């Protein structure tokens, strides 16, 4: 894991508090498992049909019938349940999952999210992302601030097909934590050592920054 990813995860972990039900999307969000202390009463939901999954120590002793939605072998913590896919998504559509963390190709200042399809290039299917994005109370995007060519991923308006409109609550990148508000994207925290000008330069979206209130991480 890069230090940028570690910075994102450490910041993201602060959003998780005792008593919550949290869904971790495929990729970087799954790594949040490492940031949830075992004594914290949090149940991790995975949409393939488990509530209360946790990491296992020794993959060679994995239960072959226990994976999360990313295909990682998992164990369960006390209070866990397993269920069918209809029940799993009923939980999502009924807003019984408090929070979900997801990756993004693009996210914009209206809280629109694109993370499932790059036309002509990548279209393996949408999986459970659309229902999670549309229905979970609080969606937190974890992604790099720019793509590998340095182009902004935090946009004025998404150009790729949307996963869901107006669904994102908070975006956490290695450069900033940004909250989606009715007036735009408001910077909550800036990475240590980064100037506001550098952040604006790396971002296409218009950022609302109150220098007196912004934090560091």
């Amino acid at each position, binding site marked *: 894991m890069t230090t940028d990813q570690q910075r994102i995860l450490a910041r993201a972990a602060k959003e998780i508090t005792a008593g*919550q*039900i949290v869904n971790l999307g495929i990729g970087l969000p799954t790594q949040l498992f490492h940031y949830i202390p075992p004594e914290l009463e949090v*149940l991790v939901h995975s949409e393939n049909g488990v509530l209360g999954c946790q990491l296992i120590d020794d993959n060679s002793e994995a239960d072959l019938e226990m994976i999360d939605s990313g295909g990682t072998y998992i164990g369960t913590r*006390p*209070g866990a349940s*397993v*269920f069918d896919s209809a029940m799993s998504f009923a*939980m999502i559509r009924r807003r*019984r999952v408090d929070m979900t963390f997801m990756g993004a190709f693009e996210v914009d200042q209206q809280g629109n999210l694109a993370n499932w399809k790059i036309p002509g290039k990548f279209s393996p299917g949408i999986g459970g992302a659309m229902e999670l994005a549309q229905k979970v109370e609080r969606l937190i995007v974890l992604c790099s601030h720019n793509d590998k060519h340095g182009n902004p991923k935090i946009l004025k308006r998404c150009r790729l097909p949307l996963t869901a409109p107006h669904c994102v609550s908070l975006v956490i990148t290695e450069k900033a934590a940004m909250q989606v508000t009715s007036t735009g994207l408001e910077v909550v925290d800036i990475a240590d050592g980064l100037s506001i000008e550098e952040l604006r330069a790396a971002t296409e979206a218009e950022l609302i920054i109150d220098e007196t209130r912004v934090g560091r991480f």
Partner: protein
Amino acid sequence: MTRLNEKHVAIEAAIAQISDGASIMVGGFGSPGTPFALLDELLKQGQKHLTLIKNDANESDIGIGKLISAGRVDRLVTSHIGLNRVAIDEMNAGRLSVEIYPQGLLAEKIRSAGAGHYGFLTDIGIGTEIGEGRQEVECDGQRWAIEPAIHADFALIHADLADHYGNLIYRGTAINFNPLMAMAAEHVIAQTFHIEAPGNLVPEQIHTPCAFVSQVIQVDPATSEQGRRQHDN
């Protein structure tokens, strides 16, 4: 939602969240699965103008029968009230509004809310008196009736076994409408005979995952109609 670690509460506090005019789903088919202790507490606290959603009306002197007899129910959404003479009389006298659905449609209308849908499309009852007045839609050259989901502010649930997070396991024919209502209502209060520490229930045996349950209340089988023999046939 209620936080996982704050769900095990006292019966008075849980029922006190219900206000006059609330809509309440009540589990049970006949006596099994009816949350008698929760209903008795509701009777004691005095909330009125209630809308109840329950398969049947219980018998007139137990369960929701007591609430109906006490004039506390304005509206009942149900499939059959044949065992409750008082409910039939109240209905015929115009004091109780009764809305009747075929039992399986009632179950699916509740489940539909629990699944987060607007409703479902069915051919049940098309062309009969009980199927009249429904919005219909044509799909694939055939008419289908739209059955909208039934929502409620509260569900009162009876389980056999729970843990402190609100995972529920039912027993016997006391399952019936309980897991469906637990998914459907905004606020779900479950009574149970036994509460275990999280981890003591087998994940595959849990019927209602804790995500759907707001509060769990431990009740003693001996203190209510839960332990009473209802009939001798």
